[in-house]
């Protein structure tokens, strides 16, 4: 039995990808570097959502709200206060987690679909604030030209910043995923009633998961500000939350890394197909139908299955 968390193959693969990505900026056109950075941000957002949706079995329908809170907090602190920039960047995730806690406290009292409905309602309140409170948030215009520290204001700087933070966040998420907490979360997804009967305080567990997930959503929100230099209310609109939800399904929500693929596919579709036609969502729709019929476990879930039956279970014990 190996004592570590990573087996050598996973670790090697992750390191290789990371190094390859680190060497891209000098050789790729700036536009692609920007798209990759957007994928990193979106991947982190999708990963954070999947922790509660795919692993926790919660109907977290309005994850974008917390992403938006993170982004707006950073954006507002960078533009409206004279505090040091890093404070704004650090405050984003904490603000998101705080809102996650407040909304979560109410949501975990409900189950399944009701949980989702309440979250959409409460999340939409935050959207309404961002959308309507012109004097503070700039309303539907949002905030543009957010001043960033020079180190991360260039597109290459933003790229590396996002890449490093993504790597760190994924590492932490993986630790949590493989921990007793992560294992218990999967058990709650499978059977909350049984979990109660073996002495697990299901609601508290779910709430902690929500706070962690919204914290990481907040980090993604901050990264969005770093990449785009702006914030706008669409980030908190429920339609965007649905998109992130779809990323999880698309990549494979019962897997760990699936949402990264989901995010990459969605961002690429929107960027590359979106330039040819406004109807890129049509292609997305067709993809979703095919997905439901042919790859119900998602893209990454399918690949894992093909790679060998021994990889079927995420939490397999290595003896």
């Amino acid at each position: 039995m190996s004592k570590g968390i990573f087996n050598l193959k996973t670790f090697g693969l992750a390191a290789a990808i990371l190094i390859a990505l680190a060497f891209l900026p000098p050789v790729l056109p700036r536009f692609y570097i920007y798209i990759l950075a957007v994928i990193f941000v979106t991947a982190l957002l999708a990963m954070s959502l999947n922790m509660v949706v795919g692993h926790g079995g919660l109907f977290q329908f309005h994850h974008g709200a917390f992403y938006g809170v993170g982004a707006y907090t950073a954006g507002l602190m960078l533009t409206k206060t004279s505090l040091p920039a890093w404070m704004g960047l650090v405050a984003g995730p904490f603000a998101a987690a705080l809102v996650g806690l407040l909304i979560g406290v109410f949501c975990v009292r409900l189950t399944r679909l009701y949980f989702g409905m309440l979250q959409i309602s409460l999340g939409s309140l935050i959207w309404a604030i961002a959308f309507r409170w012109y004097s503070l948030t700039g309303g539907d215009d949002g905030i543009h030209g957010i001043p960033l520290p020079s180190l991360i204001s260039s597109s290459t700087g933003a790229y590396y910043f996002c890449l490093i933070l993504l790597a760190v966040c994924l590492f932490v998420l993986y630790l949590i995923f493989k921990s007793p907490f992560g294992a218990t979360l999967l058990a709650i997804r499978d059977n909350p009633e049984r979990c109660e009967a073996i002495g697990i305080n299901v609601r508290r567990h779910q709430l902690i998961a929500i706070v962690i997930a919204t914290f990481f959503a907040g980090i993604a929100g901050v990264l969005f500000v770093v990449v785009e230099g702006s914030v706008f209310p669409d980030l908190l609109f429920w339609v965007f939350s649905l998109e992130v939800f779809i990323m999880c399904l698309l990549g494979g929500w019962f897997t760990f890394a699936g949402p990264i693929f989901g995010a990459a596919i969605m961002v690429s579709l929107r960027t590359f197909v979106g330039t040819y036609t406004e109807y890129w969502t049509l292609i997305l729709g067709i993809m979703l139908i095919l997905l439901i019929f042919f790859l119900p476990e998602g893209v990454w879930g399918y690949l894992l299955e093909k790679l060998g039956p021994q990889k079927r279970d995420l939490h397999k014990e290595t003896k």
Partner: protein
Amino acid sequence: MLRVEGLHKSFEDFKAVSDAHLTVEAGQMVAVIGPNGAGKTTLFNLITGQLKPDRGRIIFNNEDIGRLPPYEICRRGIARSFQIANIFPRLTVFRNVQVSVLSQQRKSIRMFRPARTMAVEETRNILEKVGLTDKGDTIAGALAHGDQRILEIAIALGNNPQLLVLDEPTAGMSAEETGATMALIRRLADEQGLTVLFCEHDMELVFNVAQSIMVMHQGMTILQAGPEIVHNSRQVQECYLGGA
């Protein structure tokens, strides 16, 4: 150890349990019997907190646990199995039991240590005791029905309970499996000094295994006594064993 006094529970207008009484002494195997719909499952759900009683008291180790949520009741030493196999279908057999052991050790919330190094010995011991060792890596949902029922008991054992509540542990099993499962439960009770409260439809088994039998009918406790007395009671004959 466990005392149920004048317990009532209605759903809408239906009185599922009305005036149930039960005493379980430490180390005993106590059976609850009664025709279908007598309120056995409701009674068990009340004891382990899935349902809240309308009236009455449930005393466990001198504490009224009637209002506590299921996880608090579990932490006080009552673990249970369900009538319909109630497991974690997408996790491995090993993980099913491990999650329970981790909960018992109050480690469910730990985040920064790999779970695969924790509670491993305890989990293996339990799997060995119930004979599921070689199926440890199987996805629980893919187990045969009988094995799922056994896993159900193994999950309950993960909580290292004082009192094990088993709601028809042999439901849906073949005669052979039923015998083996009852033997297992008896062995566990002997070896670990477990107190067991169970309900079961096979009367021969009940009268063989149980030291005390509580008879329920239409939500009411008719009597609780040793197997001999219950067997000979006219009242019980009339409303339950009558036909047999």
